[in-house]
């Protein structure tokens, strides 16, 4: 008997709206300056009202916090700063009561160097079972074709451990030794970790840094067949014991390299579409749909049970790994005038500052996020247009406290400001007195209200989460137009990437006779004919048009049989 999840639809993640948040940054329930599960629980009503359906929690496990929790020292606990296991379970139950699914992160590629497994490994004799939990070598010469990911801080993927008297392998920071997935015992232990959290009732797990599980000489040590085998093993274990759960791959790779992470529907249910994100920004700045079309043309079909995860921004930098050198240079020039905005191969900024706080641009990009094929992921605070702080180190500038109201500490915590894990944003444009939830809740015209309406609208149409995509090819390249289709639903999306009004003639001859209805206002547009369909869009304007047959009626409710 499989353990059921909190939802009955096995494809629930296709219709989900994921909201990414850091427990430490969201709400401080005990007023010690650090967000916690008690605080998060108090804010669940807000999230439910926003309309999101799945909460993605960044790592909350015990950790030295040298990499914001991605350096886990105990997979089976809760970091004391964020609460207790009981607090987590109370949160999980409360989320499920509100029909919110919960997605947690398991960083299985590596642990913290403080993890007992690593401490035991470095003391153990070479070749011993304890030692074999990690990847060791006598020199730093092995796997030379593997690139260095954190170029700003790391010079090598090997670090000398004086206690072990050997080099250990790490694809990220040197305090994050990679687990040895060639060792079956490692996979066994990792599966135990999965089962622990799935038994508690979590609905989904994000697999961090999944391409790097296995290393082989003469390769770049990414996306190796043995890595896929390890993931299939984990997935099979989940499928055998649990129903309606989901695993999400973080594989910052080209679409063709991500495709194998779906397998034949037997690896990950979902994977992030990393290269699309920078190209959305590129298309916007260049006022040209080509970068988007180009990357979508390179995006292969995926199994029916699988889904892309789409995002505009997240807790990391706006990554520019999956672009060409020229494209990267363009993006740096376009979106990071101040060198402090750059980190590694990316730009550490939030959505609103990236777009010069232009409401129309923010709405346009969100309209793409909500209407492209995949499940949208919203980064906490972006629904109110929160800003960032480029003077904070690493990527902490986009991980500042959630701005709830205009009170002390933005309503995030009652602690004295000096105790906060991070200063709140205080500048005149993005500061908490100007940008906060409370103010936007009482403002019918706020970004928050708009985002809430768009989420509600998207949830009315399964076509967005499950439908096919077909781009149109109007001569005006500042216009991006595409049709989504699913089970009788048809939606035409048209977006103006330009800062000026644009005309467009769309060839909709194959839809002759259909009636477009603008979806937000339910406004009927002229019937489609064999002639070009002419539209004019305002600066950064977009239209979502549901296409009805003239005789559309209650026929949608044709009798079927219950089983």
């Amino acid at each position, binding site marked *: 008997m499989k353990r059921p999840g909190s939802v*009955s639809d096995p494809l629930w993640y296709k219709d989900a709206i994921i909201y990414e948040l850091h427990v430490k940054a969201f709400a401080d329930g005990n007023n010690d300056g650090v967000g916690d599960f008690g605080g998060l629980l108090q804010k669940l009503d807000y999230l439910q009202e926003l309309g999101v359906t799945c909460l993605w929690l960044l790592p909350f496990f015990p950790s030295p916090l040298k990499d914001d929790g991605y350096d886990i020292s105990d997979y089976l606990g809760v970091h004391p700063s964020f609460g207790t296991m009981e607090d987590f379970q109370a949160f999980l139950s409360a989320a499920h*009561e509100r029909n919110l699914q919960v997605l947690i992160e398991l960083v299985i590629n590596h642990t913290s160097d403080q993890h007992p497994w690593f401490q035991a490994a470095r003391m153990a004799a070479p070749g011993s079972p304890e030692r074999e939990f990690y990847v060791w070598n006598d020199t730093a010469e092995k796997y030379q074709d593997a690139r260095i990911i954190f170029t700003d801080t790391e010079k090598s993927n090997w670090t000398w451990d004086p206690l072990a008297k050997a080099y250990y392998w790490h694809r990220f920071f040197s305090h994050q030794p990679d687990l040895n997935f060639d060792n079956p015992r490692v996979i066994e232990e990792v599966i135990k970790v999965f089962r622990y959290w799935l038994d508690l009732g979590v609905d989904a797990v994000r697999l961090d840094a999944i391409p790097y599980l296995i290393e082989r000489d003469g390769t770049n040590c990414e996306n190796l067949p043995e890595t896929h085998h390890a993931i299939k093993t984990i997935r099979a274990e989940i499928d055998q014991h649990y129903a309606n759960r989901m695993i999400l791959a973080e594989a910052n790779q080209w679409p063709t390299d991500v495709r194998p992470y779906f397998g034949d529907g037997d690896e990950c249910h979902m994977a992030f579409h990393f290269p699309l994100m920078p190209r959305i920004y590129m298309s916007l700045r260049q006022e040209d749909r080509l970068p988007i079309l180009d990357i979508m043309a390179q995006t292969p079909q995926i199994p029916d049970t699988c889904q892309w995860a789409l995002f505009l921004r997240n807790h990391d930098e706006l990554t520019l790994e999956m672009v060409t050198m020229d494209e990267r240079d363009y993006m740096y020039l376009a979106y990071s005038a101040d060198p402090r905005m750059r980190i590694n191969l990316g730009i550490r900024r939030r959505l609103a500052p990236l777009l010069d706080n232009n409401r129309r641009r923010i709405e346009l990009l969100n309209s793409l996020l909500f209407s492209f094929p995949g499940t949208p992921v919203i980064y906490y605070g972006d629904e109110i247009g929160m800003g960032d702080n480029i003077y904070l180190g690493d990527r902490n500038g986009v991980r500042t406290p959630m701005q709830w109201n205009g009170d002390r500490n933005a309503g995030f915590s009652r602690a004295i400001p000096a105790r906060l894990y991070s200063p709140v944003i205080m500048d005149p444009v993005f500061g908490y007195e100007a940008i906060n939830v409370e103010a936007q809740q009482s403002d*019918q*015209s706020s970004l928050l*209200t708009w985002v809430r*309406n768009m989420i*509600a*609208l998207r*949830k*009315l*149409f*399964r076509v967005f989460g499950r439908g096919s995509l077909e781009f149109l090819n109007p001569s005006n390249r500042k216009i991006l137009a595409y049709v989504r289709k699913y089970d009788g*639903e048809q939606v035409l999306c048209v977006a103006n990437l330009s800062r000026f009004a644009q005309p467009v003639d769309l060839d909709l001859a194959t839809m002759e006779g259909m009636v477009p209805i603008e*979806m*937000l*206002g*339910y*406004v*009927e547009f002229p019937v489609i004919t064999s002639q070009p369909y002419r539209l004019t869009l305002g600066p950064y304007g977009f239209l979502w048009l549901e296409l*009805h047959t003239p005789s*559309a*009626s*209650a*026929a*949608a*409710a*044709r*009798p*079927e*049989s*219950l*089983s």
Partner: protein
Amino acid sequence: MIAELTSISEQTKQRLQQIGAVDLVIGFADQRAGEDIANLLPKIHQGLSGLALKGRTVVLVPNYGVAVGDGEVVNEESLALFQYSLPAPDPSISAAQNISGAYRVIWRISEELNARACAVFISAVENLTPQWIFQLAQPVLERNFDLVAPYYLHRKFDAMLNSSILYPLTRAIYGKRVQNPLGPDFAFSTPLLQHLLRLDSAKPRSSAGHDMTLIEPAAVVAKVKVCQSILGERTYPVVDGKDLSSVIAGILAPVFLALERDAAFWQHIRGSEPIPIFGEDLTIKEESVDVDVRRLLESFRLGFSSLQEIWGVVLPPTILLELRKLDRLAPEQFRIPDELWARIVYEFAMAYRLRSIARDHLLRAMTPLYLGWVASYALEMEAVGAVTVQQRLEKLCVAYENMKPYLVSRWRSPDRFNP
């Protein structure tokens, strides 16, 4: 109390197992069913006589908490009469929630018996005729329908809340012309009642919307086969004028909640379609009724003067202006246009969704408007016959359907800055 009704005891299950193969379950919720068995059984036998039954029929009568335990009290070859535990109606919860309790336990028993069909009678037993039994059960047993909704023969001032809001609203929303979407007397196929039980168990037990009276919309969303059967007249419970607000709130709350739940379904439905009606469409003799329109209008005007604050939050300026004009009309000229009425109902549904004010207060604040509609209708229909009344109500339904794009638009862009 509701929790007690979610399952049946092991002891009851054992007794049910002894009954054998069952075709039809007939469940009564009226406590007088048990007291009036001698009078009831002949009607049931007569109703069953026209049905092609292969197994036994089980008649369920409630004991209303009398400590006799569940069990068989009549055991005939073709019929068993079974007494089941149903607590007396709880005045602290809405009538809809009390009725839901009865549905739940009858469905559970029917499911346990694996009957082919289950007919539930919530109405007072005096209403029951052999025709009711036959007409409800036959479409499930012999025509493969999953839900049989009741089609009652109304006098022109019967079931006003149904005629003014429930029927036209659910018809416009769900696209099926079902005269009594809230029944309450229905017949179910086993797959449908199992589906309804699954829906029921998926809801938070303590939620305000925890009632199962919205059966017809749930069946339409599940895309099962629905029909109506003409049952004849039904005596409606008399509502004390003082309780009217509670009744309105109790009935409309689950309807408006269902709009939220089913939004992804109904926003794709345009227009409506008739569904099969079985039975003989008898006409009932209209008796002359004196409607005290003056009191109804007084209630409307009192509401207009005292509820401005609430109505101002719920209704946009054009509607408020129309209401102001109505307030100034002489009684004989008082008419609420259908489009205006439909917009008012839709705006209250929106305000309910948006929680513009406390939901119970909101629904109660609708009472004077409803009484205004009744006054308007009474003035218009005072001297006309049944056919004209039907045409008039059909016109109202069409207005709801025509105004549905207005609701969809408001639903998707709930900005208060609207006309």
